[in-house]
């Protein structure tokens, strides 16, 4: 039996940020970690709000948030906490030597692994797609044997976004990995971490760099922060841009490593491979959670709990039968408009939000779960990230933004 001030449940972006902010408040924090959240999935870019309710691109997230529905998590979190959360995040990653550029007042443009543009808000220096906007030539670099990055397709789609007055050239680099059948971005990134690999790569690219050009590469520039990125920009003498990538994406893992390093410095206790299973409740408060570890079930007590278990994707919320959605640890009330006619939009990619995506725990302005009448379910349990109801992160491009803002708010509450 161990007692903390705060127990954070969840190892994704919302969980790690909740833990960091809580520790920053001087609290004794325990983080129960299971899985890796969506870090490998989302390329580690922080989308705040890419598209409004009508599906139009948002120029300034700060402004567009004002127009959102009252049930949207950003409305529950409030503008001030959102602004503070952005600053907090940028300070953390900067102090770890992995700065993220951007602000709430403008959009950053990232180039995706298929060659489309994607609005995001906070991004690492290596992913500034806007550098391509004014270039006269974009050199697309493929790597022989690397699956899931096809320079011809990227060039075709990028030309549709940026126009045909630019030159799009393609290069395939053979990194001479004998015996390896298929490469992943990860394999190439590890190879670029090595001195020999890096030297080989740069020597093969050198002839393609030049004034007015931008070198566009898949997400392969090393696994450790922005070390390789800084070096290669200086060695090639022209801008280099990384795209988003098929999971598992390197930049998501870079961000995760950096946040874990910050966690360590703050003295946060991380319990690995620890799946929280149920809570002990006394009256209107949670007393502890029980979690299955490697060997036996352990009990973790705290004054406050932050639930960041990732909704349907990570199993924080389940729905075995139609209409019977539940939050699995505390049994917090879940809203799900599970009616056959509207639960799923028949078009996968459409101009409407998916109803099922908006299911989740309804919360008050302190991010505690509330029932239909607005009564707080458990006084000391706060919800962050994908468990929240009222938003479709895919339609809006708001996933990591909601995670960040709600984590900050939940930790501060």
């Amino acid at each position, binding site marked *: 039996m161990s007692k903390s001030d705060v127990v954070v449940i969840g190892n994704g972006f919302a969980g790690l940020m909740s833990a960091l902010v809580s520790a920053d408040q001087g609290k004794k924090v325990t983080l129960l970690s299971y899985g890796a959240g969506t870090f490998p999935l989302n390329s580690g870019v922080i989308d705040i709000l890419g598209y409004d309710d009508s599906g139009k*691109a948002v120029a300034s997230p700060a402004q567009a948030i004002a127009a959102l529905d009252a049930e949207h998590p950003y409305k529950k979190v409030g503008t001030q906490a959102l602004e503070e959360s952005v600053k907090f995040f940028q300070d953390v990653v900067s102090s770890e030597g992995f700065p993220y550029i951007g602000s709430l007042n403008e959009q950053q443009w990232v180039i995706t692994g298929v060659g489309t543009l994607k609005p995001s808000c906070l991004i690492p220096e290596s992913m500034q797609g806007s550098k391509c906007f004014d270039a006269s030539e974009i050199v697309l670099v493929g790597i022989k044997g690397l699956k899931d990055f096809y320079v011809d397709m990227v060039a075709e789609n990028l030309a549709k976004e940026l126009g045909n007055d630019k030159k799009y050239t393609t290069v395939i680099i053979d990194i001479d990995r004998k015996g390896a059948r298929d490469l992943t971005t990860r394999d190439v990134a590890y190879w670029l971490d090595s001195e020999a690999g890096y030297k080989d790569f740069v020597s093969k690219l050198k002839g393609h760099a030049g004034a007015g050009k931008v070198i566009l590469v898949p997400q392969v520039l090393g696994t450790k922060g922005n070390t390789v990125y800084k070096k290669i920009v200086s060695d090639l003498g022209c801008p280099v841009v990384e795209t988003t*990538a098929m999971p598992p994406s390197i930049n998501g893992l870079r961000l995760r490593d950096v946040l874990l390093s910050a966690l360590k410095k703050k003295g946060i206790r991380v319990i690995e491979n620890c799946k929280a299973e149920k809570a002990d409740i006394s009256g209107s408060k949670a007393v502890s959670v029980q979690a299955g570890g490697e060997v036996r079930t352990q009990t973790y007590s705290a004054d406050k709990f932050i639930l960041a278990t990732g909704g349907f994707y990570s199993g924080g919320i389940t729905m075995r039968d139609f209409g019977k959605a539940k939050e699995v640890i505390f049994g917090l009330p879940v809203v799900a408009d599970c009616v056959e006619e509207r639960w799923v939009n028949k078009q996968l990619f459409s101009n409407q939000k998916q109803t099922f995506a908006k299911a989740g725990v309804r919360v008050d302005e302190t991010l505690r779960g509330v029932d239909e009448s607005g009564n707080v379910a458990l006084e000391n349990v706060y919800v962050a990230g994908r468990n929240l109801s009222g938003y479709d992160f895919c339609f809006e491009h708001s996933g990591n933004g909601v995670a960040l803002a709600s984590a900050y708010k939940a930790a501060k509450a």
Partner: protein
Amino acid sequence: MVKEKATVVVVGGGATGVGILRDLSMRGIDALLIEKLDMVNGASSRYHGLLHSGARYAVRDQEAAKECIEENTILRRIGKSCVEATTGMFVQVEGDDPDFVDPWVKGCAESGIKTRELTKEEALRMEPNLSRKLIRAFEVPDGAIDGFRMSWQNLQSAARYGGRYKTYTELIKINVESGTVKSITVRDNVTKEEYDIECEILVNAAGPWAGKVAEMAGLECSVSPSKGTLIAFNQRISNRVVNRLRKPSNGDIFVPHGSITILGTSSITIPDPEDTSTSWEEVEELMKTGEGVFEHLRDYRILRVFAGSRPLYVPKGADGGRNASRGFVTLDHEKEDGLKGMMTICGGKFTTYRLMAEKFCDVLAPKLGNTAKCRTAEEDLVPAVSDADKKAARQYFPAYGVNLAATRLGTEKFPEVVKTLKENPESREIICECENVTMAELMRIAQEPTSHSIADVRRRTRLGMGTCQGNYCALRSAAIVNKLFKNKLEGCNDSLSDMKNFLQARWKGITPVMAGKTLREAEMTRGMYEVLFNVNGGRR
């Protein structure tokens, strides 16, 4: 305008039609099969893929049971690479009528179907996921069969005997002169060209669409399309086919195929055979019944739900649905309606497709003065791919994939693909990891005359049809397919549309089961394609 001639034209590219084409061709009769879409798009690929032992019919319809066990034995022999000889189990669980068992055991014995009663412990050891509410269990010689592949192998076999076939060729008119069918008018659904085909005998093998074909000749043929809904699970829940030991009903068959399991089936009479929609109610009914056999059914990930129409023949005055006969009828319209040169085959089930063709052609052939005997049970559908070819292929891609590719491609195309793999290292790229589809195989199948659209190529190669449901290969295949076939195959114009259309096609089967682990997959698919790759395009 008469553009073509054939002694016999068969309408309908399902199991019934291809079986007849093969049978006629082997008897030396010149025959042409036409299909309005791609081959095997109806009931023959939209069912559970159970190779019946006949045990399911042992009580109600012993004639059908006997036919099943005989055909089961034949298909195992002639269609080895399409059959998974799993055996099957009939299980009785708490709540099932105990009085059904004895007549069933007796019925099986009388029909020639071997059954063996298992102790409860034995049954649970063989199939550990079975419900603990199990009471009795019997082993029977059921199996799993790939209806899609078997139908294509029938076509290959027919082609060796001169049989011809055309896809995307739709019957639009039957031309009758003085009480005799002289020709048909068809439309090429790719070029939209319309032309006539002369024939001596027109065979209506259009399955649930048979009534519509008969109408074109001014005849009535009462077919009641009966929709069956099925659920595909991501795991192999059992190693054998598992049937509920009770009066045949909805949702009591589980059939394992490779790494998945199919649960079926519902039975709803519908007016339109094109209706393959499914509702929550149907899904829920299947799940509820299925849970009786496998308690933890809801914890498995559902891949997709799909539906097909059975072509149930309803004699005048009878009702359709589950009580309609699974037997088949041969209608000689000369005898029945006084129209010469047209015959209809209707009803039946996949397991007995070969026998149906035999009996049907026994009536048809003498009309043409042909007295050859049916030989379809004697010869394998396709010769086996040689070990030498497989061994050569193993140098270029994973051993597991070699067998998959060999059975998909067959003796002629497989060595060609291996040659491409050898000569062109780039073509070794595995585009679909679930189904082990290489670029070389895609390139080869795209050259087939039946490959009009990228969707045709996908069906033949199974590209993106595996358990990742396209999450990992949608991008990859869109890129490669566009590089190879852009503006050469229909539906292959730009990579983003192809990616979206492909994922949308998968989505159709996912939406009716958006609960449980399917929700998790949906979050991932959207997170990847809508967010990470922003396939809707950036500056909207």
